[in-house]
């Protein structure tokens, strides 16, 4: 409203034409919103049907929700996902903070070269090393129990974590670190008491990105968690779908449950996600 009266007289496009354009854009955005919300609508509406109602196309029922727990040990699998996520992220953070601080501030011999090698590891897709990785982990008996999968997730997440923390710690002034050393904090003290508080946004970014990535992952959980009792929810869902015996409404109910935690984390911490994604490109 205000902008219309404030617009300079030299503007060639009439306010009316501008309004029409904005109307068209609004309609296009609504259409796009429908497309993007489609999966959620399908999951929600299909989950409130029985198999027959789904095939017939009408009717509602809460049956599939009642039966869900019997076809998918949902609470155990949610717990498994949580355990694997937390343990992996903890390792990724600790290892990444230490290495990032070192690469950024403690110039040792070949530091830059090793940093480059570490960041390059970000580019290695798991599938490329899947076979030796699986055999190594299995040889140590780690495909039973969470540790094998946790280590694989940690290794895959660490290069990005190092990259992010190194970038962050480079902004910490050298004088601050020297002052901390002179005050007798030692390098550990400087890292944990001075540098770390400045890297809190980076910690949030790594945590959110890795949480969504690990929670949503299939391949690692499928191969490195061989014991069905230790399956994460995403793997349980995929295994259930591959079995092709479960009713579709139940699958959709399960999908919704599995998607909920990552969606909540995402909605709560959206800005950290954006920051992590575009780091290194926008300053």
């Amino acid at each position, binding site marked *: 409203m205000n902008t219309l009266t404030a617009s300079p007289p030299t503007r060639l496009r009439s306010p009316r034409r501008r309004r029409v*354009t904005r109307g068209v854009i609004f309609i296009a955005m609504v259409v796009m919103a429908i497309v993007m919300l489609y999966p959620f609508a399908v999951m929600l509406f299909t989950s409130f049907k029985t198999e027959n109602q789904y095939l017939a196309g009408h009717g509602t029922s809460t049956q599939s929700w009642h039966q869900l727990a019997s076809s998918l040990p949902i609470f155990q699998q949610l717990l498994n996902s949580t355990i694997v996520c937390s343990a992996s992220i903890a390792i990724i953070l600790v290892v990444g903070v230490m290495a990032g601080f070192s690469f950024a501030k403690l110039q*040792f011999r070949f530091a830059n070269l090793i940093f480059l090698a570490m960041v390059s590891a970000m*580019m290695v897709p798991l599938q490329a090393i899947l076979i030796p990785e699986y055999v190594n982990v299995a040889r140590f008996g780690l495909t039973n129990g969470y540790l094998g999968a946790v280590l694989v997730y940690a290794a895959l997440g660490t*290069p990005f974590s190092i990259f992010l923390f190194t970038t962050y710690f480079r902004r910490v002034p050298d004088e601050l670190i020297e002052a901390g050393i002179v005050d007798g904090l030692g390098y550990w003290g400087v890292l944990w008491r001075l540098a770390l508080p400045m890297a809190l946004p980076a910690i949030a970014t790594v945590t959110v990105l890795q949480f969504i990535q690990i929670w949503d992952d299939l391949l690692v959980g499928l191969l490195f968690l061989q014991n069905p009792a230790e399956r994460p929810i995403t793997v349980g869902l995929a295994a259930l*779908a591959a079995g092709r015996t479960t009713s579709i409404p139940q699958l959709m109910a399960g999908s919704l449950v599995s998607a909920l935690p990552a969606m909540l984390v995402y909605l709560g911490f959206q800005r950290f996600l954006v920051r992590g994604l575009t780091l290194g490109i926008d300053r």
Partner: protein
Amino acid sequence: MSTSSTVTVPNATPRATRRASTSLLTKRRRRVGVVLTIPAFVLVGLLIVWPILQAVYYSMTYWDGLTTQWIGPSTWWQALHNPTMWRALENNALLLLAVPFALAIPLAVAVMLHQRVAGWKVFRSIYFLPTAISWVVIGLVAEHFFAYSGTLNSLLGDVGISNAHTDLLGSESTALIALGITFIFSMIGTNTMLFLTGLATLDTSLEEAARIDGASAWRIFRHITLPHLSRFIQLAFVMTIISAFSALFSLIFVMTGGGPGYATTTMEFLVYQTGFNQSQFGTAALYGLILFLITAVVGIVQLRLIGANDS
């Protein structure tokens, strides 16, 4: 330890003392630096770098997971004559046709969001939301969208093309199309996010000035917005290609299982199939290396993009 020799300089001049103490500090700093990187070094070294070297060795063996028999570089020659591998590479190449769509649609969406029409923040959240859910879940929904008795056909029926019953996933010639469409959908959120961040760094007064000078919306987009976004488009381009080669496993696993036939088997899925369905670990390791070489080429491009901006 070794530092004791530098400390015990009894009658040193003040200058020398200073030099000695700096080098002591430097040595300590370096030592701490090395110690702090050891965990990362061990983790990445043992679980990422070492398996690559192992893969090189195993790719030249006959290996069923239990016994290994050395064969030599001829395994590579054999693999290059394997039609299944070429079929997988061809599928990967065809999937790259989805990349322009996975960039153009998010670009249009981001530009629309950037106009800040009523409710744009709500729209933004809606568009980003699918990035949070697993591609396993997206694949499950997509499977029932494309299925013979699925949503696509009832939609087609509603518009009056009821006799055109499609079965995209069931047919060898069209299954890859359904996979490609799902892939495009899955990339929209991430790429829109990237482009929108790029647009946010654009100086709006520039656009405003052009508009006052009477430039059309298209000219403004073409000559101001697009050049400004070039770096973001490059990054999205590389990330989308890498995803096309290494992130489709979940979609393929739930939607098609690689079929019908080998219609949707990509390199990454072939690694899994060859290793875990056929127990040919040596050949699977070799396929993994080929995938590694492909993504390494793309990855070097991305590192250069990041690096160019870093300095």
